[in-house]
């Protein structure tokens, strides 16, 4: 039996007394591009922060490759943290290091490779995201879209089997966004990387997401699960259908009923 790459079990998240998510449960099968969708304020980022171990859910458990990131401590927690890559919405690059140094950071800190090998591995990832020419620039000297791609290169540094991306294409121009989508698709297709992607960009959703959960603030949790192209046509909830049909016609393949 192949266990899920990520297994979310009845997770609740609250800030003080205000409950944001309650009883959220889903599995992410290996090798899939999995979407966490929903309007702003629906708890996407809160859930993602729990998945990557930055926040403890107020109830429930989260397994990465079968091991609980919620309860792991010490070396086990480090092992889990190093088993995935995470790209933050704002990039979160270290401001006083160049793009290359940022992409090399996990290699520098976590491997015993000689410096030439670390350099080569980091440059390979930069080439993958199309940033070879910007390797020696500081984050403050490149555009927002380049920052996001550099963050993706850093998340890929250790060639993880699991990738978490928070709004990877938000704020990018459509061409760069489409290139990024193609890259994510390729990573999962060729390298078998499982990707969990938080997004509200429907173009990306329909282009790359295999399966998704849709969160809604009012429901404090999941209102639909499944293939977004099917959900858009036949979700039982009227709200989910209209959410997935916003601006239909611009949203790429799979729809277009206007």
């Amino acid at each position, binding site marked *: 039996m192949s266990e899920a790459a990520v297994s979310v079990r009845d997770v609740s998240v609250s800030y003080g007394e205000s409950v944001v998510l309650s009883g959220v449960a889903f599995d992410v099968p290996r090798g899939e591009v999995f979407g966490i969708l929903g309007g702003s304020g629906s708890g996407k980022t809160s859930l993602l*922060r729990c998945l990557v171990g930055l926040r403890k859910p107020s109830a429930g458990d989260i397994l990465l490759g079968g091991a609980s990131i919620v309860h792991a401590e010490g070396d086990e927690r480090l092992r889990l943290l190093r088993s995935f890559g*995470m790209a*933050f919405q704002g990039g979160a690059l270290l401001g006083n290091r160049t793009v290359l140094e940022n992409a090399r950071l996990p290699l520098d800190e976590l491997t015993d490779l000689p410096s030439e090998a670390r350099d080569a591995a980091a440059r390979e990832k930069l080439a993958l995201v199309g940033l070879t020419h910007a390797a020696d620039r500081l984050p403050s000297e490149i555009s927002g879209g380049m920052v996001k791609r550099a963050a993706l290169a850093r998340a890929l540094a250790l060639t993880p089997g699991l990738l978490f991306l928070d709004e990877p294409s938000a704020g990018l121009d459509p061409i760069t966004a489409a290139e990024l989508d193609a890259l994510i698709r390729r990573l999962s297709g060729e390298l078998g990387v499982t990707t969990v992607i938080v997004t509200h960009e429907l173009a990306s959703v329909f282009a790359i997401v295999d399966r998704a959960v849709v969160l809604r603030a009012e429901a404090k949790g999941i209102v639909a699960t499944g293939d977004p192209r099917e959900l858009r046509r036949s979700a039982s909830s009227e709200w989910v259908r209209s959410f997935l049909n916003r601006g239909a016609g611009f949203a790429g393949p799979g729809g277009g009923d206007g």
Partner: protein
Amino acid sequence: MTREGRGGGSGEETTVELGSAPDAGPVLTLAGPLDMATVARAWRDADRLLGSAPGAALDARGVTSCDAAGLALLDHLVTRHGARPDGLPAPLADRLSRFRDEREAAARSRRRPEASFVEGLGAGARGFGRDVAEQVAFLGAVVRALGAALRSPRLWRASETLGLAHRAGVEALGIVGLINFLLGLIIAFVGGDILARFGAQVFVADAIGIVMVRELGPIMTAIVVAGRSGSAFAAELGTMRVNEEVDALETMGLAPVPLLVLPRVVAGTVATPLLALYGMLAGVSAGLLQMSLSGFPLAVSGGRLLEAMTIGHLVIGVAKSVVFGALVSAVGCLRGLQAGRGPSAVGLAATRAVVAGIVLVIVADAVFAVVTTVLGV
């Protein structure tokens, strides 16, 4: 019958009238549009009319439109004046009851009201206790990181640490020299003035030596380091916190203390005593300069100084500077890592770093005073 009226935006008039029905007692009749343009006036009118007729029935059949402000007025009439809403048309009654539900839900979810003074004191004391515990735990983490670095030289991050030490030390030479020089002058002036009355002006040299080397040199230097480097550390780490850089490190399995804090604490701990030595020199020179201006040749004042200044004073002064430097830079890093979110978080972290740094320096100095007195050094 009293009648108040006012033209609505559309020319339609909003009226508020108090009348009475034979079997129902007083009746407040509202008519016309109840909206943002008309409610302010209607509100005042209704308040005045109902002041003398609590528990009146509401008659709103003539209301032609009603927005949220209008609903707030109806709600006010019912809650504050005990007006009876039974005469409202069904759609309006519906909207009013939904409005009241939402208002109550909002009131329930609103944050707790300001705490009382006593509660505030209690919370303050709890917060102080937690703060001290956090600082101790943080120092523990720094010492652990230091231990790890002692075993594995790669963890020293030498070039980064040197850069930080340069900024904390070399770039502060000017201000540290100036402050300690002026301080030395002041002490020599005031001390000379007082001691001259006893014909003991030559002992100013003793005072200058001991005060500058053992007390004020280290303290003033540490305060400058708190203001320059403690705040800079807090701002740097606070910015990293706000930009999620610290979170990103954590998801890579990298702890912020060895990576970000240790180089800064080491830099501050090395730079501060060196700066303090320079400050002591500036202060003492200023004192000797002042003495020579008031007629004591350098041979005399310098001789007194060397006689009064034992190596013990110097050792204590330098030891204090080491501790001050470690405390100021560590608390700067801690305040940065504790920064909240949002635009004011970084500034707040820097301010808190300076305040905490200065407090820690003074407290540590008091501890030194007690310990050295007890030990008799």
